[in-house]
């Protein structure tokens, strides 16, 4: 059974086995495995869907049906930095649409697409739970709040110039952010290595420990 992912990294093969074992029914591991497969294939490719189908014992079509339901499973190539700009009600009231336009402009990437050099993908996000620090955006799902069009543009330029391998929310917030939803709390040194939520064992900078 595991032969189907024998070309995955040893660590990710072990993670896949752990995920499957952590549920009473192996199909429950489908979503975690799609995130893991994204790390292996850079996005949810047809091959990835066939592999995950084999792992959980359903058909590739069933996997595609699930993958296509959720916005975070990307079935096309994604840039190094996925910039998701919220324009839901509070962000809308406080300038989220202008922030989105600014990000599109600075990256030369219209929403819903990826820049030609593969550096940026830009998308309109629905509410990301940062209304107290609106307008807000996420880079590879790491949050930055209290933005303006200018600050968002500067953030994008900084990403292009410094090309961080790990995207850290605290660092981006400190450099380019403003008002936060709740302005207190511990610092965080973990971040994302790609367009997968930085939660070990998926996309975290510490996943490789």
């Amino acid at each position, binding site marked *: 059974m595991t032969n189907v992912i024998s070309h995955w990294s040893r660590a990710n093969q072990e993670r896949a086995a752990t995920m499957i074992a952590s549920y*009473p029914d192996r*199909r429950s591991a489908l*979503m975690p495995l799609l995130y893991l497969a994204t790390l292996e294939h850079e996005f949810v490719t047809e091959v990835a869907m066939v592999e995950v189908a084999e792992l959980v014992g359903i058909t590739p079509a069933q996997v595609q049906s699930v993958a296509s339901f959720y*916005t975070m499973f990307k079935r096309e190539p994604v840039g190094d930095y996925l910039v998701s700009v919220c324009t839901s009600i*509070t962000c809308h*009231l406080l300038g989220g649409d202008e922030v989105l336009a600014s990000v599109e402009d600075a990256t030369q990437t219209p929403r819903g697409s990826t820049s030609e050099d593969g550096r940026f993908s830009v998308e309109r996000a629905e509410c990301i739970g940062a209304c107290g620090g609106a307008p807000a955006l996420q880079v590879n799902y790491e949050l930055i709040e209290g933005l303006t069009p200018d600050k968002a543009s500067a953030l994008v330029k900084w990403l292009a110039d410094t090309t961080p391998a790990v995207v850290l929310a605290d660092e981006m917030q400190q450099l380019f952010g403003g008002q936060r939803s709740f302005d207190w709390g*511990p610092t965080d040194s973990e971040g994302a290595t790609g367009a997968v*939520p930085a939660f070990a064992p998926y996309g975290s900078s510490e996943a490789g420990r």
Partner: protein
Amino acid sequence: MTETILTTRMVAHPADSHTIDRYLATGGYDALRKAVTEMTPEDVAGEVKASNMRGRGGAGFPTGVKWGFLPDTYPRYLVVNCDESEPGTFNDRQLTERDPHQLLEGAIISSYALGVSQAFVYIRGEYPKGARRLQRAIDEATAAGFLGENILDSDFSLTVTIHLGGGAYICGEETALLNSLEGRRGEPRLKPPFPAIEGLYAKPTIVNNVESISNIPWITLNGGNAYASIGPERSAGTKMLSISGHINKPGNYEIVMGMTWRELIYEVGGGIPGDKGLKAWIPGGASAPWFIPSLHLDTLVTFDDVGQNGSMIGAGAVVVMDETTDVVAAAHSIVRFFAHESCGQCTPCREGTSWLQAVLERIMSGGGRLEDIDLLLDVSDNISPGLKWPPAMTTICPLGPSATAPVSSIIKYFRDEVEAMIGTTEVANV
């Protein structure tokens, strides 16, 4: 205003609020110790029932009553709903990121009370920090003997598994969440059967919100009666409200219900920036019908008072709009959200939300027709007959009816503005 803190004590410990050391230093896990050493599972469930706590996720159903629906069969599951995605809401994010041990202790005590040996926490994919912090808390609690086999040397064993969502608002609906957790599309199920009877893997399952679960340690330690004695009788305890929009002090506030909206907006929230006028506010997240100052400023902030005035506290999101707000554009933002998040199962919602969005966009882009107002109401009525609140439904879940709330609100309260937007453009249209 009296300050009563049940769930947000970590505000005082910003540097290390997420660690087990800080949690233990502030009385953490005392409630779990009390539960497993001094109380039977039935005792704990009895205290939760006595607390009269109404579920904090949106529906406001009493948690203890929900727990009482479980049939006497095993295995049973507990699923903590941290798919917080209602526009305007960010209180579960605070509780998960800043005080993960309180959430975890609540889940462990609840599992003990419910006879559960595997619990899941479904966290939306856009909250990776919360997932990281909670996983760390799980690891720390396991090492300390609060989780795993034979918790605190009792017969009670438990594993807690974090499941990350994939970016779908609808998974906050409890049966959609269960489908998602089973590795399926997040489509709500017909009820009945309710999850307590047939939930995860068709087994008895309790789905509770993060804030509800985060209150369980306090209730266990202090007793249900103590909780019930806080605040108005049918809005007992404290509630975290997320206040955002045109407001001087946006943020999360743990309040005792029963104050007026005037006090909440002008005292707790600090009023409107630039001393601008208040145009409207949403009392309970994007799904809720709007309130306006001429009618609702002296309405009380309780589940029942807001309900009797045709809206809801929901998940506790207050979105404030000042006098400069373009209400058509604001309603459009909300309608677009629901059109995007509709799972597509039910025709009135799938088609209706997209039509509402399209008609609003026609109005906003200068092509509006006067009959568009009736068209908006007609489409809304097909999704939710009579446009009442709580809504009548032609759909499996309340998502579709929620999309009609902003539409009927702006037509009810700001019809002249909608007509003006149409009128100014009508000449170009003919």
